[in-house]
């Protein structure tokens, strides 16, 4: 059965059909959740919550966007909400703080060869996790959607209810920030 048929069936209460959809998309949702919260347990929570919300809201899925895009939007909302609940800090935005100070200075450094996919070691993974976790969650989402998952700037804006210039500026800052954080690791 294709997605459209499964969605129609699930809309009328067919849980088996919905289970099929979960099966098809759970790895994608889990992976995206992890890339934002950088914690396997949280990613698992977000995953389950996402599909439960999806089931509840299935009637509002019009089919105008891809089902996967719709799921991404729910994950994004769940991550933002979870972050707000747990951190008590405003999500938007740290632009006035020190976080990005110095990232627009040109710190010259030659990185040499970086490892490829399968050989990312534990130490480097920890460095990558730690660096991105320093970013406010909305910057994280912009970077992951745009640079890692390959969404267009417009799509990212729609998902986060941000204007295109706002997405661009967050992307820009996130890229420079992450690059500077990793700089220490690769030049030490």
């Amino acid at each position, binding site marked *: 059965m294709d997605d459209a048929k499964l969605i129609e069936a699930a809309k009328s209460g067919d849980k088996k059909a919905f289970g099929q959809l979960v099966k098809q998309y759970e790895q994608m949702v889990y992976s995206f959740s992890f890339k934002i919260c950088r914690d396997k347990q949280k990613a698992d929570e977000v995953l389950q919550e996402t599909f439960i919300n999806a089931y509840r809201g299935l009637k509002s899925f019009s089919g105008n966007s891809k089902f996967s895009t719709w799921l991404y939007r729910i994950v994004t909302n769940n991550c933002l909400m979870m972050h707000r609940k747990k951190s008590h800090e405003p999500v938007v935005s740290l632009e006035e703080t020190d976080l990005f100070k110095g990232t*627009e200075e040109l710190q010259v450094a030659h990185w040499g060869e970086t490892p490829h996919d399968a050989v990312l070691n534990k130490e480097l993974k920890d460095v990558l996790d730690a660096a991105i976790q320093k970013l406010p969650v909305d910057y994280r989402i912009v970077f992951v959607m745009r640079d890692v998952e390959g969404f267009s700037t417009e799509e990212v804006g729609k998902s986060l209810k941000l204007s295109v210039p706002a997405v661009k500026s967050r992307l820009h800052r996130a890229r420079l920030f992450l690059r500077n954080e990793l700089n220490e690791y690769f030049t030490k």
Partner: protein
Amino acid sequence: MKLVDHKKYLLEICEKVDRDLTSPTCRKLREHLSQCPDCAAYYDSLKKTIVLYRDYDVEMKGSRVKEILAQLDLEEPLHITLPAKHPDLHGDKKRTR
């Protein structure tokens, strides 16, 4: 070379890092990168940053279909009690188990 001269390229490097630099609009930047080892190194490190995050993926340990469907089953009574306010829906046998 003065730092100021490179700094104006920094923003452009960041903005164009995921684009194809062979396009005509990127000509100036491309030229600069070919002459300036510092900016070239910066461009390279920025690109690598993105690639590293792209390569870092995680696999689920096992499917969560069962847990999710079990949670949805717990919600079922809600769906059943709701139509009680609408006598015209009482004939709906689909939801009874």
